[in-house]
């Protein structure tokens, strides 16, 4: 594998956007340094020659997990909605999703 370049401040800002986080300038500065240090440590993994080694996503993988298709009670709607930040007509209420037509 080719070594990976150190993470930049712009990349951290981009990644924060992908993760729907807004960082202050001070956080951006600090996280760029800290993530760089952790990723430097991970460089030993990134630079290994592991061609042909299979990936393990689950150490104790199980497949085709089935159960009888029987109706059973679901979560109580009122109890679920009680924990919601905003509710309207038995639904989760959110701010507008779509913008004005261009």
């Amino acid at each position, binding site marked *: 594998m080719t070594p*990976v370049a150190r993470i930049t401040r712009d990349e951290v800002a981009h*990644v924060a956007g992908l993760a729907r986080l807004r960082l202050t300038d001070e956080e951006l500065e600090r996280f760029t340094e800290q993530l760089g240090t*952790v990723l430097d440590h*991970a460089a030993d*993994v990134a630079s290994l020659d592991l061609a042909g080694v299979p*990936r*393990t996503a689950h150490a*104790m993988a199980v497949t085709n997990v089935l159960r009888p298709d029987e109706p059973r009670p679901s979560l109580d709607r009122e109890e679920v909605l009680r*924990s919601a*930040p905003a509710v309207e007509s038995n639904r989760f209420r959110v701010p507008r999703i779509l913008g004005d037509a261009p």
Partner: protein
Amino acid sequence: MTEAPGTSPGPAASAAAIAADVRSGRRSASAVTEQSLAAIAAGDGEVNAFALVTADSARRRAEEIDARVAAGADPGPLAGVPVALKDNLCTRGVPTTCCSRILDGWCPPYDATVVERLAAAGAVVVGKSNMDEFAMGSSTETSAFGPTRNPRDTSRVPGGSSGGSAAAVAAGFTPIALGSDTGGSVRQPAALCGVVGMKPTYGTVSRYGLVAFASSLDQVGPLAATVADAALLFDIIGGHDERDTTSLDRPAPRLASVVDQGVDGMTIGVLAEYLEGADPAVAGRIAQAAEVLAAAGARVEEVSVPEVRLGLSAYYLIAPAEASSNLARYDGVRYGLRVDAEDTVEMNVATRSAGFGAEVKRRIMLGTYALSAGYLDAYYGQALRVRTRIIDGFAVAYERCDALLGPTAPTTAFELGAKLDDPLSMYLSDVCTIPSNLAGHPAISVPFGTGSDGLPVGAQVLAPALAEATMFKVAAVLEAGAPVGGAA
């Protein structure tokens, strides 16, 4: 019954002894519960093991159990035993926050499977224990409710992320507790607080109702003052659950009765790589632990599994990658915090930026980066290949050995604040626990004397997948042979 090591200031009675007394009517569940609540009231101001003490519901529950005993019924193998639950285990109608502002006040509409099983066994939940936010940390300092302090020395951290559960047992607030272990979060705090903590084989304990951090690594595990109590608790929480699709379809474990069977004839490998970075006093205790096992009839030899050196790097790519996906659900829509804004995306951003602490943001970004275009194979893909290599490395060692021995943590408990702003240094305290999570194997930490600073050292026993019986037998021999006080 195995006695707790002599240095332990833990509870006077084991969980098994309490349950026996309550079932036979010698002691009431109410009296046991009052004793636990009084100990918490007296000591938890300083320790801060609990995010929430559920005194009223604990008293009601204890009365129910006493009524059942009076009526001639058997409330179960944990009758009247006080238990602390890590605050990432869902409890119906009782706040479950993962010690994060983003879930402040959230009351789940269901119980975790392990919580149901504890209730069915007669246990009394006295509170939700403090933890690193979303279980991301090794010191219980990233909790939104403030840090937990180590009951052995309150200037020190209890370890983490299940630091509240470990401290509750070490302080004698409860004889048993549940934690979760994604990279060592049960075993490392157990070691630092001088109690027993165990991570089961992946899939043997249901994750239903455990708030997800890194789903391929997370397992719920018991903390206790004795190995026998840890086995008892594992027997109760273990076993198949159809509500967790990663749950292994196997009979429930029944190991409490095999714990005392000894190690005669076993081959136990001392894992050389785990001693490389260890404090000399910690390494000295592990050498002493090896002698205890040899004296008990085990063949002890040095073993090398070089692949485990790559565990830390692989873990800090895999776990954040899974976390970045799992924590996408905290969007301010269905539960927890919402910071209002003009539109929904702006609301998501404002909510997550205000609700997550620094360590959680770091891990989400690390994981998002490791999964992002251009880096996916270099980081995440490589880490998954390393995971295969670690499993293969352990398999070679287990061709010759029944179990492996090493320290749980490279040092004893460190000072509060010492590593909080140095993530890599904090992550390194999990270097000896992470490989078991990556491999899915069971491992247990047993108190084994103290370091040069007088603080507890944990000896870790690792075993192959599903070999919990072997692991508990080795642990019990170490417990019985643990040095009482004194420096190494």
